[in-house]
């Protein structure tokens, strides 16, 4: 007798609120090395267990375990660690700069550095990343000029985006980094179309798109997944499940009933659930998906399980809706500390090396910010006002020409 006398509406609630002990028991975790690694050419229907597993390489002692451990060269590990530290130093510095009123807005990616940095080192120069606003690590790993980031944050006279975008909504075509926007999910379809174009052209370039777990609820994401499936687009669709979409926990996006990686199943795509704070696991999973894509086997959906340590943005106060010590309690730890521990365990890194690198990254950021400040913080300098009428169209029509004349006087 299943039938109840009355219906009741289920409204998801997170396991912990401010004042509660953080609770991550809902995360279905498993030890490093346990999850199998199918060969990349395996048909998707033979991998339907993968979205419910968890790809992990680094164990608690910093050792690489299991079939996903691919033995990355030490220089890749060093490069990855440096890019993560640079990202963290940048985030910390600009966050303070914002507090000083030198820019309007900022978003940190603290805790999510590995899932942006490692894929950047996997992708090749001709590939394209379709990022979110929390993926600056991708640029850090590619030595994007720090000063250009700072100038964009300040919307100053040397802003590469000419003062048109809020801070962190970068665009860097030459670095394989597509234009970021504040709209959510609306560029996953571009990534799929871009990847389809590569296949259509007989090229070997692939696309990587990021979204957050909250954005998986957008219709545009499902449209994009349909196209990725239908046309076997050589694309990697990455979901950063950082547990929070502003104040809404992942259950509000549908994470209570299944995993976000399992969204792949309905589209017949492979889905991987990956420890997003494990640099080696992220690198291995994206390499696997990239190999599939380049072998004309189509798209892969990857969920990176991680934690948004910082607030959503400088306009957000997470103490209002979640316990304030989630970062310490998060069972997947900190991506920087875990890679550092691994490198020390390998004997290629020391705590002294680490301290020196942290200091060097902070100094590089400090120097870039100082240089950016000398060019101008928000509102102090700007590109010439007339340039706001450029790039509306390839060639302005009479409206932009007339209005520009009016503004320029």
């Amino acid at each position, binding site marked *: 007798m299943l039938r109840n006398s009355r219906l009741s509406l289920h409204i998801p609630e997170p396991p912990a609120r401010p004042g509660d002990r953080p609770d991550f028991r809902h995360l279905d975790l498993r030890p490093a090395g346990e999850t199998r690694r199918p060969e990349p050419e395996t048909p998707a229907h033979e991998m339907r267990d993968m979205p419910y597993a968890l790809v992990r390489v680094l164990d608690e002692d910093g050792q690489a375990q299991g079939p996903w451990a691919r033995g990355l060269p030490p220089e890749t590990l060093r490069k990855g660690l440096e890019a993560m530290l640079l990202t963290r130093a940048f985030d910390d510095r600009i966050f303070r700069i914002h507090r000083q009123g030198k820019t309007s807005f900022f978003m940190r990616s603290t805790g999510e550095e590995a899932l942006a940095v490692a894929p950047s080192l996997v992708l090749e120069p001709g590939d394209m990343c379709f990022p979110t606003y929390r993926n600056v690590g991708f640029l850090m790993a590619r030595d994007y000029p720090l000063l250009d980031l700072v100038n964009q944050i300040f919307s100053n006279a040397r802003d590469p985006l000419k003062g048109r975008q809020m801070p962190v909504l970068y665009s860097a075509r030459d670095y394989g980094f597509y234009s970021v926007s504040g709209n959510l999910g609306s560029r996953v379809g571009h990534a799929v*179309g871009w*990847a389809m174009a590569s296949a259509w*052209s007989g090229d070997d370039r692939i696309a990587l798109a990021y979204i957050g777990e909250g954005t998986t609820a957008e219709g545009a994401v499902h*449209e994009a997944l349909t196209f990725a499936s239908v046309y076997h687009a050589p694309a990697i669709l990455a979901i950063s499940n950082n547990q929070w979409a502003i104040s809404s926990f992942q259950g509000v996006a549908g994470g209570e009933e299944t995993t976000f990686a399992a969204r792949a199943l309905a589209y017949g795509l492979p889905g991987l659930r990956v420890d997003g704070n494990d640099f080696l696991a992220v690198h291995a999973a994206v390499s696997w998906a990239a190999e599939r894509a380049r072998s004309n086997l189509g798209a892969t959906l990857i969920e990176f399980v991680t934690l948004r340590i910082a607030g959503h943005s400088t306009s957000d106060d997470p103490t209002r809706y979640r316990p304030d010590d989630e970062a310490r309690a998060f069972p997947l730890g900190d991506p920087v500390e875990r890679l550092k521990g691994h490198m020390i365990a390998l004997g290629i890194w020391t705590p002294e090396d680490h301290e020196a690198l942290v200091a060097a990254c902070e100094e590089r950021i400090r120097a870039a910010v100082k240089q950016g400040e000398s060019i101008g913080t928000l509102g102090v300098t700007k590109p010439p006002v007339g340039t706001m009428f450029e790039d*509306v*169209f390839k060639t302005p*029509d009479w409206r932009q020409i007339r209005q520009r004349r009016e503004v320029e006087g």
Partner: protein
Amino acid sequence: MATMNMIQAINSALDVMLDRDPKALIFGEDVGYFGGVFRATDGLAAKYGAKRCFDAPISEGGIIATAIGMGAYGLRPVVEIQFADYILPAYDQLVSEAARLRYRSAGDFWAPITVRTPYGGGIFGGQTHSSSPEAIFTHVTGLKTVIPSTPHDAKGLLIAAIEEDDPVIFLEPKRIYQGPFDGHPERPATPWSQHPASDVPEGYYAIPLGTANVVRAGRAVTVLAYGTMVHVALAAAAETGIDAEVIDLRSLVPLDIDTVTASVRKTGRCVIVHEASRFGGYGAELSALVQEECFYHLQAPIERVTGWDTPYPHAFEWDYFPGPARVGKALKRCVEAET
């Protein structure tokens, strides 16, 4: 030169561009093997292969999103949205993405896409197959919006649209696919073959966007129209005997403001005609522009003749449609008004 109806002219433009530009491709619902529900892509998949003209899922948002990605890659996608009424799931892609990509990336990326879509009433399509949504595109900075009124213009404008490096909404007045329509549904339909604009060059030609066409010269009043309503306006002028100058705008964005203002300054009177509903329609912008640019030349209030501010009702289609009688009345009011 060949005799073509508007569908054949559109098909010919697509054929020419697939042949000329190896990066051009077509996709959309039912456009591949079958050739589209209005037959606009008939034969193209057979001629150029499925790679150049293929079917898409029923996903207007997905169609436009993937087209933008392909455009950013360097291809030149031409997509069909089966009815303009169904373009709304793609509206976010057009407004937030296609229209702003070049601007927000400071020229890093752009979306050279053409979105073809049949629009307008007069086919008993009710409120789901009749609407005229041009104003929701013309209001979006970064989109171009084009509407042909003849086979000759349809081909030349579509070729120009495909060659554009900016996103173009190409609205096709489906009531005049087969023949010009003067707004008298009770009369037998005339085919395009009896109209001089059905003479269409078989090869390549482009009509630059932003050039209006004075289809009837006159001195008494300027009529601004586009799409099906060009033919209705001509019928109204003929039936009233008013010496109207009828301007077919052809491209709403960019607008040929010089041709509009030159005519209104000459006639001193202006009637604006469109099938879309009135409030906040493209006619409101035209009216404001004419007032701003030509106020001291105006001898009468500007008139608008439009669809009513209701959805397009199935049984009352001809009550909704701004036919020659309503246009004629407005012409009379306008020429008889005294300042």
